[in-house]
Every structure is written in C-alpha cells, then in structure tokens.
C-alpha cells in the first residue's frame, strides 16, 4: 500500500489517541504507507488562532505531503480547503488510537467523506 496519510492526534505516537477535532487537533501523525515511516506535525499554532484554525490545519496537512486525512469532525471551510488541495477526507474517526485508525484504513474499512460533518467554528458536540 502506498500514499501518505495524516491522522489528527493528541500526541506524536501511533499509540496516542485520535484527536476528534480537525482544525484544533493537537497535531498530525503522518504515516508513509509504503515504508510505515511515522512523523509528527505539531498543530499547536492552529489551536491558538482566534479563527481559521481549520484552514490553517488543512495547509499544515498539505505541507506534510499527505493525500488522505483521518479525523473526527471536519468543518466546511477546512473541508473545502482540503478538497482544493486534492486531499481525501475520512471523518468520524474517534475513540481509538492512531495505530488502530491506520490499520482500519489499510483494511479498507474507512470510506472517504463527500461533505463536512461539523459546523463552521468548531464541533460543539
């Protein structure tokens, strides 16, 4: 399997939990599926923004070279930005570790989203 996927994460390791927030995620664990090399992109700068965290996070994912992003909730502007960047969005991923999410993705159990699943300005649920 090839490609680079980014998973919103509460920490830098595969054993850290998936952060269900996209824009305000702590960071992204970036996995190169061909080699299973793992790196981490801190997203703390987006967390501190008054507005536009989702757009900033989308830029961070694009800069990491990811073609797919796994997260819990993605808002409309982040979704639009990811789409424009040609990045596939897989949402409703939460309550598991980054490693478990990556395994599910590799087994083909996660489907790409066609629309955002959270309102602008952050998921309130």
């Amino acid at each position, binding site marked *: 399997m090839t490609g680079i996927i980014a998973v919103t994460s509460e920490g830098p390791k595969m054993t850290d939990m998936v952060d269900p927030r996209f824009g305000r995620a702590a960071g992204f664990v970036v996995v190169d599926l061909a080699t299973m090399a793992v790196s981490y992109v801190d997203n703390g700068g987006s967390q501190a923004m*008054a*507005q536009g965290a989702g*757009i900033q996070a*989308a830029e961070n994912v*694009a800069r990491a070279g990811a073609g797919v992003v796994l997260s819990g909730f993605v808002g409309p502007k982040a979704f639009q930005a990811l789409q*424009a960047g040609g990045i596939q969005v897989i949402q409703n991923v939460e309550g598991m570790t980054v490693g478990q999410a990556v395994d599910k993705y590799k087994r083909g159990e996660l489907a790409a989203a066609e629309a955002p699943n959270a309102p602008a300005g952050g998921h309130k649920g």
Partner: protein
Amino acid sequence: MIYAIASGKGGTGKTTVTASLAALWDRPVIAVDLDVEEPNLHLFLHPELTSEESACMEIPVLDAARCTLCGECAAFCQFKALSVMGKTLLLFPEMCHGCGGCLALCPEKALSPGGRELGQIVSGHFRTDHSSSGRAQDAGFLMGRLRVGEAMSPPLMRQVKARLPQTPGTDILIDSPPGVSCPAVNAVMDADVIVLVTEPTPFGLHDFRLAVEAFRPLGKPMGAVVNRAGIGDMGVQDFCRAQGIPVWAEIPFNRAVAEAYSRGEVVARAVPELHAVLLALMARMQGAAATSISTANPAEVRHA
C-alpha cells in the same frame, strides 16, 4: 457630549434606562442603538424610521486568471480569509476583517475590492417629553442592525458612529451591547461618560466588576445604575463604595416596570415613581460630563 449606557451582564436594563433617558432628556439629543446584534431601543422609543441603507465591508474579489499563486496575500492575512491550496487561491469572505492588506500587496493586481454586507443602518426621529423644536418627532434616532449570520459587529458599529452628526450642543445617548469584548468596548470608547447598569445579584456584581476592569483604563467618568434594587444583596453597592464609583441611580424592583416594559413603553413615563429617579440620573450624568471636560482638557476650558 456622548453618553454610553453599558453593562457587563446582559439583561440588566440598558435599553430600559436608555429609552427613559432619551425620552426625558432636556437638551437636544440623538438616541443610538449600537447593540447591533439585537437592537431593541426602537421597540420603546417607537421612532418614525425614515431611512435604511445597507453597510458593507471591503473584501477581496479574485481574478483567478491574473493570480500566480504567489501566496503573498495568504501569508499576510492573519484571519485565514485567503489560502493557497493546491492550484487554487481560496477566498473565505466571511473570515475577512476588511483591512485591505491583501489588496495592497497583490503584485499581480489579481485582487479587487468587493463588499460583504454587514447589515443595515436605520435612522429616523422620535419624540422626547420636551419637544423643544416644536416638531412632534424632535430627536434623532440611529440604529445598526447586523445581518443574520454576520459574525463581526464592530465594523458595522463604526459605520453607524460615522453617521452621527457633529452638531455641538446635541447630546448622544448610546445603547451599548452587553459584555466587555470588542463590541462593548467599541460602543463606549468614544463616550465622554459611561453609565454601567447592573443588578444587585452575585451575577450582576461579577459582570459589573469585569466591566469596571475593562472600561476604567479608558479614563472616563463612570457611574453605576443599580436596577431591580431591593432584590439580591448589597454586593454591588459595597463594591462601588470600595472602588470610588458613584451610584447614580437605584431603580426599585417593581412589577409595574416589567409590565410597562412588556408593553413597549418608556418606563419613566409609565411608572410615576421612576420619573424622578431617571431625571436625577440625567442630572448626574450631565454633571459628570461637565467635570470630564474640565479635567480631561483644562487648556480648552481656559480658552473658553
């Protein structure tokens, strides 16, 4: 003189007080509703509205054919209103704060000014109890109304304030938004005197403290109005005494006030006991404004 009627806590009676003051004001006056997210002063003053215009903020519009995706605009924008993603410059007009930086920076002239509707500016006239001009509707009324869905109220508030006539001798009463964030500060920053309306409860005191903290650095005379006096406790009065903030009026808790309010009446007209309370408040506000000139700008006073 500009008087801002503000409060930390919402629902304490800013509009009730503003409407009563506007109705009783004994000098030429303009009543302004700057609580643009939910303007309601007109429900009590019943002004005759004579004009309505829409207010816009300048936002960038993209000519994609000229854009080279250099990203200068996106790098400059602090609000993520522009973002280069893949082979596209994305614009998020609702994020724009209207600074114009992207328009000035674009080396390809690919961005041109457009407009995002902020809301409406409504103006008209209402009747005071003095009718000094002899006209039935003798005082000016001005209100901003934010478009539903618009998140930024200060740009609209600035445009409303720009419509205020600079007529010397005409006082301005501003019904401010609650809270202590940008909209509230924007409403009080140009005032000569700030009136803080609160209620004598722990909630009232908590938010009153925040308002004092937020507005005191502006260095303007401030006084408190304790509304619904008689309920709750003496915490607000004690705090005012300790902080040296005068209590300019106590409006007693009274069912008749709530009834008059619910009918859209000016309570100082509808409830006889309140008439004198509000007149005394007016006098104290005018007194504070007079002191404010002499302390803030002594050189000006000597010339006069």
